[in-house]
């Protein structure tokens, strides 16, 4: 179908003001902040309802036109770049919080609902509840984060955010709307058990199996007290010994670690950093909450006891620093304590490029992975920038190596591509698996994966999306 005719048909569905083929619009939707190759869509559309999404999908399926779902484009994996052109479906206008069910502790949201908006809604209208927030800009999509197995400040306790999904409403690539999870059989979107768990057909599939238009996610009680402490370690082994010990208590909401460049970027507001050999190499922040002061005192005392216990074993750690003290020096440090937060301290540098290789894997390989990857980063001239946390009660670990870079410098873009590839290979060697895998990383995973798993993946894809219209090029599909 000619582009003009396609635009006309789409305009009939959603109105011409929400269909754009403007060169500037296409340029913007063809890029993201990462090193991934840009690729231009033919058109961008902004539907406002499930019916409109359904009509767009039906038209695209009939005409075999690729569709790429988009909300904020901040997935740091090139996942919303339309690799094979076609239509970008920007779901930003669908930003309603449809239900906050306090009794059953879930909210039903549309794709455009951001962490900022959910936080404001809960704080203002449902103050007994909280959701979990990632270390990402405040205006990223709650739904995309959950569908892409993202993580948040409650992941140490509860795992990646797909585990918070109760139910989904999905527009399938052939245009049918289907309810998944409890929503399939109950008017309450309370969970995914005890039905066959079809949510897995859409989680981490990177939009290749349909467009999710509604999602119920769990919310949790907001406790009366909350505290954040920082504990610094002078080397990688001491750091993970501490993190592992704390994680095994399963007492803490969050135990997130960061390497020295992250800490110093925050304070120094510089990218070019060097480490004083006497400086801690890594730090951890521990969040804990409780309904009574006694509970809080116990959890705090436990951290101090762990530090002492490890000291007796020859592992040296700094006693805890309180975030409240840091905030007294500079109120900006509150950004370290309250999520969602603006990330100016992480992205405040020239060049406007930001990427990472994030991976989930065995906790037992954290030390080795960190040492190996730090060496890789240093080899390429990047500071060893790590964000890490134990996940789901210490059942696995996330290692996320971050590389800010100058996107206007093609040499540096090339270098960062090589760096990311080498980091992903190294992590896979150790048994870690990249998450939100960009197409090049997905290829690496598929090469090593069980061939029958790959075959099953393709069979499912072909069954759900016979015309292969959904976000082509992702997952090697």
């Amino acid at each position: 179908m000619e582009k003009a005719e396609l635009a006309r048909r789409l305009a009939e569905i959603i109105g011409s003001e929400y269909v754009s083929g403007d060169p500037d619009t296409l340029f913007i939707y063809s890029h993201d902040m990462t090193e991934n190759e840009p690729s231009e869509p033919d058109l961008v559309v902004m539907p406002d309802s499930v019916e409109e999404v359904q009509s767009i999908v039906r038209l695209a399926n009939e005409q075999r036109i690729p569709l790429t779902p988009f909300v904020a484009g901040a997935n740091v994996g090139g996942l919303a770049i339309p690799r094979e052109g076609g239509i970008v479906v920007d779901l930003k206008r669908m930003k309603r919080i449809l239900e906050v069910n306090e009794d059953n502790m879930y909210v039903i949201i549309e794709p455009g609902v951001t962490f900022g908006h959910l936080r404001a809604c809960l704080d203002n209208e449902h103050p007994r509840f909280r959701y979990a927030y990632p270390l990402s800009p405040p205006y990223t999509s709650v739904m995309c984060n959950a569908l892409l197995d993202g993580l948040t400040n409650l992941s140490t306790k509860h795992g990646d955010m797909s585990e918070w999904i109760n139910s989904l409403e999905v527009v399938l690539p052939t245009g049918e709307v289907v309810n998944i999870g409890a929503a399939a059989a109950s008017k309450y979107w309370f969970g995914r058990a005890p039905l066959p768990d079809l949510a897995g057909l859409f989680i981490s599939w990177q939009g290749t199996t349909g467009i999710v238009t509604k999602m119920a996610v769990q919310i949790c009680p907001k406790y009366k007290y909350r505290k954040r402490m920082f504990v610094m370690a002078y080397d990688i082994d001491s750091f993970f010994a501490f993190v592992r010990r704390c994680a095994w208590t399963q007492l803490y909401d969050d135990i997130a670690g960061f390497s020295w460049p992250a800490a110093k970027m925050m304070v120094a507001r510089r990218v070019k950093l060097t480490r004083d050999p006497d400086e801690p190499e890594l730090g951890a922040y521990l969040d804990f909450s409780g309904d009574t002061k006694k509970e809080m005192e116990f959890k705090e005392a436990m951290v101090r006891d762990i530090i002492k216990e490890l000291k007796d074993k020859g592992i040296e750690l700094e006693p805890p620093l309180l975030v409240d003290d840091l905030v007294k020096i500079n109120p900006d440090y509150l950004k370290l304590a309250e999520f969602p937060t603006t990330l100016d301290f992480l992205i405040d540098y020239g060049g406007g490029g930001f990427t990472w290789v994030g991976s989930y894997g065995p906790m037992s390989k954290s030390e080795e992975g960190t040492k190996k990857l730090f060496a890789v980063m240093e080899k390429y001239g990047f500071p060893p920038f790590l964000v890490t946390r134990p996940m789901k009660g210490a059942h696995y670990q996330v290692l996320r190596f971050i590389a800010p870079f100058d996107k206007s410098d093609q040499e540096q873009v090339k270098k960062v591509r090589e760096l990311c590839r080498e980091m992903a290979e190294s992590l896979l060697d150790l048994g870690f698996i990249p998450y939100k895998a960009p197409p090049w990383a997905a290829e690496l995973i598929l090469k090593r994966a069980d061939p029958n798993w790959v075959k099953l993946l393709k069979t499912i894809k072909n069954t759900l999306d016979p015309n292969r219209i959904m976000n082509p090029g992702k997952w090697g599909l």
Partner: protein
Amino acid sequence: MLDYEEAKTWFYRCLRCGTCKYIFGLYLPSCPAGEMFSFESYYSSGKLWIGRGLAEGKLSFADPSLLQKLYACTTCGSCQVQCSLPVGEHSVDIFEALRAEAVRQGYGPMPGQKHLLESIKNYDNPWVQPRQARERWARGLEIKDLSKEKARVLYYVGCTAELDPQLHQIARSTVEILQRAGVDFGWLGREEVCCGSVAMRLGDREDFRRLAENNIERFNELGVETIITSCAGCYKTITQDYPSVGKINAEVVHSSQFVQRLLQQKKLSFKKKVELTLTYHDPCHLGRHREVYDEPRQVLQSIKGINFVEMRRTRENSWCCGGGGGVRAGFPDFAQETAILRIKEAEEVGAEGVVSTCPFCFQNIAGGIAAANSPLKMIDLTEIVSRAIR
């Protein structure tokens, strides 16, 4: 003020993290253009990325749809406040540099805005009015003509308050206040020329420079100590943009600041009660761009009887009236819808009237009130003050 080459150095400083789109903490929209047109390219970050596309030769000013993105921006500066990166501090300057380049290349501004620039060239005002029309509002008033006699203070009325009959009351009230306080002041009458704000915002740097040079020379010839403006746009332009052209040997203040000073000096006092529930709309040019937030509020709050209420988005987080940056001429529907959102916000807090300190905001919000059939009254701060001192 940035030139295009300087602006280019900022194009790669934005990741499109989206922080410019909403007010942090409140999580309410901050960008009128983004709210109206929705696509990424209308937001601040989108325009910065358009800059990338232009710098890389992938986009062109010759594309009318690109001009639409550059000009459908009220230059309200809310994105500047929300963005916490260094580039955020320069967003509006970058947008204006892009517009200036569009004009330099012969493409800008938008068709609906061109008559403003032509009028400035022909009449030294953007409202296609002859020069003598500037004197109409002052009929019956005795004001020193500074082209003939000396005074310590120049009242620089501004094109909009002088030439829109709906707004003559702003100028008349200001004169009443100054006279009541015994201020030695005068004006320029038909010899007043536009401050150049409209030319600057639309990207006509050449005409802006002509007007600025003319005004700076004239102001300095007058030998006044103080220049008072009624218009937030004039105030921003003279205090923020003129320094790159030349130095004015006088203090420049907005009327709201001057009134507050008169109150402090006890040269003015409020005798009459004004029993109204009022809210204050921060003009972007006075608030976000020049950080004048407190004085208008202090003046309002010192008038007996006024029940002062704040809107949800206020001070640096204020929602723009929708009229600035050439939007009212170029995109009237967008301007009106934006004003209506502001009006709803004022209604939500139970205000009977919206007070502002900018004739441009006055025009646009008043238009919105009429279009929305709202019971709200649009009032300039000087009108309330003049009521309270009588």
